[in-house]
């Protein structure tokens, strides 16, 4: 086909109003969070001693780290949804939640005797953690991938992966209210693993649905 002919086609296609990706991502995250909140409230349930646990720093730290992940990954998603942003700058944002988690981990290691570490790390219910976080993250992931379809990422796979991590952060935030394993050692292993699973799923789907 002649390039001049192609230009005729493109011009005939007419204008299209600008899309505000940051607003859409915000909406998708909010909607996803709502589905996770509903699932938590009606299907999974918060832990019985929620009100007491609120005064325990290790319990609170789970929410802080998850929230930091959500904030950092939202920013990264917005950056990576553009064709002209390099991946390295966006991925450096992960230092925020990882740094906070490392701090909590150091505090925990100082507080707990070495002999009990493996017990804290294994917790009581890591399988439930690995299943429930992805379950809570499905809604956010679907909503995010849906709104990101109109974006123009340099790497669809990477954007999908980061969207998966963001969804995982939302899932982890709500799961933290149910989970009775509060040790940062447990969080560092099992929450991280659950979020990495979601990032992989996001990358796999993103590669297909976010390609353009």
């Amino acid at each position, binding site marked *: *086909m*002649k*390039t*001049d*002919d*192609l*230009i*005729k*086609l*493109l*011009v*005939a*296609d*007419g*204008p*299209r*109003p*600008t*899309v505000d*990706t940051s607003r859409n991502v915000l909406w998708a995250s909010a909607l996803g969070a709502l589905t996770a909140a509903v699932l938590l409230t009606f299907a999974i349930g918060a832990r019985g001693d929620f009100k007491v646990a609120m005064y325990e720093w290790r319990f609170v730290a789970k929410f802080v780290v998850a929230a930091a992940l959500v904030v950092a990954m939202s920013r990264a998603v917005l950056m990576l*949804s*553009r*064709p*002209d942003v390099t991946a390295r700058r966006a991925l450096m944002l992960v230092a925020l939640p990882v740094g906070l988690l490392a701090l909590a981990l150091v505090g925990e290691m100082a507080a707990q005797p070495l002999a009990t570490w493996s017990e804290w790390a294994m917790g009581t219910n890591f399988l439930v953690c690995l299943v429930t976080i992805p379950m809570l993250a499905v809604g956010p992931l679907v909503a995010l991938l849906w709104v990101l379809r*109109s*974006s*123009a990422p*340099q790497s669809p796979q990477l954007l999908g992966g980061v969207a998966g991590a963001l969804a995982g952060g939302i899932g982890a935030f709500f799961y933290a209210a149910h989970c009775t394993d509060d040790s940062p050692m447990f969080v560092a292993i099992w929450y991280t693993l659950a979020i990495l699973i979601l990032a992989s799923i996001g990358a796999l789907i993103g590669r297909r649905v976010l*390609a*353009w």
Partner: protein
Amino acid sequence: MRAAHSGDEVAYKRLLTDLTPFLRGLAREGFRRSGVGTDEVEDVVQETLIAVHLKRHTWDPTQPLVPWVRAIARNKLIDTLRRRGRRAQVPIEDFEDILPAEVSQSEGAGMDAAVMLKALPEKQREIVKAITMDGQSAHEVASKFGMTDVAVRVTLHRALKKLADTYRGERS
């Protein structure tokens, strides 16, 4: 581009026409550096134009347009080189001083139009033909086929997406 967002077809056409030599220069330089023949230059140019068009709504009007277009061109170039089995390493900075390339006699045409059109459903094909070959506007096409303007645009838009897929997938 700003004018194009508000529906100024003349301005949009001028923008795309002006971008073309620039894109051609980028593509030619990219192929040259990777040591492959330049026979697919026009395909990359066209694929980039379609991508710029289909993603025009994501361009942030407060940002400069050229880096955005250049990034898209670079991505499409790398995709093409990858499909050809080359290790594509095209640093974006390298593109900054490239001069636009004028079209030579044998260029200005990409994949065989007949092959590309064959991939489209009949209605889409007819509309594409009417616009490219007969130079009709969407409005004229609408009255010719007894369709509404909106229906023509919707069909045309689908055709463009399909063409973008053709560039991406069926050229290996």
